[in-house]
């Protein structure tokens, strides 16, 4: 029998906040209460002044395996996730080969079994992500996949999207997730189409490229009764559409990234491709609309879209560099520093967006993630020091890549411990090897 005690913290989960230590026995939560005394031989992890919460669940990461292991592997990505407080992640299927086939999905899940967090996957909607023929979603569902997306690309054909909605009606608990960027409208664009792109001479991607697809998809979701999830919302127009659709009873959820809650297209002014991503960083009024959406529940979850790229690929001119930013290790700290500390969002709401709500959207609650810190549940937890100040060094993150837009940012809040099934993957701020 192994025992571990998290001592000195306060517990925050979906039921609320209470001061209490947490005792974990054989990987399950055994007791929660103030000033618990540890048994002899128990491992005590100092959690003084910290928040003890369900482990974070990042439902949108790219771990690049198979195919682009020069940028990241499941092992290195999971380590970064654990340092970021995650006990589970959902990997996107735009690998090489893509996750549109049972054998590849099985291989990835197998690799993930030994990783520092639980590794789940989203699988493709269409074969090869070409957007024309449906992938064998039933087979992949049987392997445990619940989220289907062609992420990286948009399913632009309305007929294909309708078919996917209808087909998934037979697969309980599944959700259709869209990377909403109309390919015809974003073609040739590399940043948000706005005053900055006009000044810099870089062709842009208008916000309408996202909202027009979301509007259409919401109509199809309503038509078919399907479940729809909007990934990385970037524009206020989209927030409004989602808000109205929820009010009308459409089964829709939405996520956005930390960077879209903080940064704007002005970050591209020096032509540094670290700030290039799809969908692009947009304007201040979009940032404000996303924050309002997070506050009123229109945006359910914060997911980082962790997108590592081999450093030499990002060391090129803006228009030629690949799009995407690192995020899984810094996501929580960025949210705490930019939204919680200034009082825009409460820490409970932030944790909800980072942990239990994405767990429910992705079906990972069934695997013991995101749930309340209560007796009998698996100990998938993170311990956060909300006042620790630290400076991000892009070259010293656990990811293989270094393309973090937060390099040299001074953040407040850091993960002290992360427990996966009761075992520490992160201890005192460091990976537990």
């Amino acid at each position, binding site marked *: 029998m192994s025992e571990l005690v998290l001592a000195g913290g306060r517990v925050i989960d979906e039921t609320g906040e209470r001061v209490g230590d947490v005792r974990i026995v054989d990987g399950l939560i055994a007791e929660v209460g103030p000033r618990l005394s540890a048994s002899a031989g128990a491992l005590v992890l100092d959690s003084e002044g910290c928040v003890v919460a369900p482990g974070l669940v990042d439902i949108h990461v790219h771990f690049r395996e198979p195919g682009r292991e020069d940028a990241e592997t499941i092992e290195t990505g999971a380590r970064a996730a654990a340092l970021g407080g995650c006990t589970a992640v959902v990997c996107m299927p735009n690998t090489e080969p893509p996750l549109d086939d049972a054998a590849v999905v099985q291989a990835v899940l197998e690799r993930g079994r030994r990783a520092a967090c639980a590794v789940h996957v989203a699988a493709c909607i269409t074969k090869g992500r070409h957007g024309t023929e449906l992938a064998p979603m039933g087979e992949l569902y049987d392997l445990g996949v619940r989220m289907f997306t062609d992420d990286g690309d948009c399913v632009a054909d309305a007929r294909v999207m309708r078919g996917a909605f209808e087909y998934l009606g037979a697969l309980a608990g599944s959700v259709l997730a869209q990377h909403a960027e109309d390919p015809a409208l974003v073609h040739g664009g590399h940043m948000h189409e706005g*005053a900055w792109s006009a*000044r810099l001479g*870089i062709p842009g991607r208008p916000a309408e490229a996202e909202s027009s697809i979301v509007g259409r998809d919401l109509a199809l979701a309503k038509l078919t009764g399907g479940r729809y999830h909007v990934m990385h919302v970037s524009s206020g127009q989209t927030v409004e559409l989602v808000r109205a659709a929820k009010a009308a009873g459409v089964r829709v959820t939405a996520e956005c990234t930390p960077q879209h809650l903080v940064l704007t297209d002005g970050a591209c002014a020096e*032509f540094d491709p670290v700030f290039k991503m799809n969908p692009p960083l947009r304007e201040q009024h979009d940032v404000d609309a996303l924050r309002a959406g997070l506050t009123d529940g229109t945006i359910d979850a914060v997911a980082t879209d962790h997108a590592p790229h081999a450093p030499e690929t990002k060391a090129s*001119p803006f*228009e030629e560099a690949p799009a995407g930013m690192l995020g899984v290790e810094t996501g929580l700290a960025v949210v705490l520093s930019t939204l919680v500390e200034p009082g825009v969002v409460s820490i409970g709401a932030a944790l909800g967006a980072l942990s239990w709500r994405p767990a429910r959207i992705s079906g990972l609650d069934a695997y013991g993630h995101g749930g309340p810190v209560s007796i009998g549940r698996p100990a998938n937890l993170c311990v956060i020091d909300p006042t620790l100040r630290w400076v991000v060094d892009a070259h010293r993150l656990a990811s293989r890549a270094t393309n973090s837009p937060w390099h040299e940012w001074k953040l407040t809040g850091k993960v002290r411990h992360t427990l996966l099934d009761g075992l520490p993957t992160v201890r005192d701020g460091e990976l537990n090897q």
Partner: protein
Amino acid sequence: MKHLLAVDDLAELDTSGPVATSLRTGIESMLDLTASFVEVTQRDIPKVPALRGKTVVSLFYEDSTRTRLSFEAAAKRLGADTMTFSVATSSVNKGESLLDTVQTIEAMGVHAIVVRHSAAGAPHRVASWTSASVVNAGDGRHEHPTQALLDAFTLRRHRGPSLDGCRVAIVGDIANSRVARSNVVALRALGCDLTLVGPPTLMPSRIDGWPVAVSYDLDDVLADVDVVYLLRIQLERIDANGADVRFPTLREYSARWGLTAPRAARLKPDTLVMHPGPMNRGVEIAAEVADSVRSLVTEQVANGVAVRMAVLWSLVGSGGPVV
């Protein structure tokens, strides 16, 4: 001023007196400097040893013989040594990244790198990888600062040292034109009144904040302007895959926005015509207009060398202590 990546950088030009207090004084200082170099280019021996022992490298990822030769002539007339990496002559290895190429050049010891690239911001990247001074010779649709300088220099030679209130119409594919972006900044700083003219599909999508007027009707604008600045329709910048949604045909473009002979006849007698070259005769400008006495096109080209000498001198020669 360490690099010239955009016209705005001239606001930091150290004229050895007080640092330029504004973009306008920085531009004017550079233009005054250019006059000294025009004189040098007119001598029997059109050369001074000002940059002897310095090396200037041309890094041209876009084919442009004229601009490249203009920069190389400028460097040589200052007594500098030159090296050329040009995609046209295949000495730029297409498999080699920009970073690798710059690091190779760095290792050879250079003082200035002149960069032309089809992607905006490429010179900015180069500047972050080298201790040499970087000159932007055209980056994508972003800027072409030395073009704006030679245009302003040429214009001042005809309209006097003050361009306050000079009415300039810039006509054509503004959205895709680095020449337009640089000229808007430079000519506005010098006091010109600017109007951008062209079809709506060729205007930048968001022009709020630009210190310009916009018109889609060339005829409306022509009667009052002092200068018509024509841009080349950039056939190589359109998306080869998509439908051309900029305008239906070149004939239609030319009919509505070209400086045809009848239109030129309606200009004021002293209105000048400018073009960055090379010209699509019969498209944005009628052949007879291009060759008319109003046209400053050949002068623009001639002044290019002196302007680039002034720029190289400012970056490499007259600066502060060598680190």
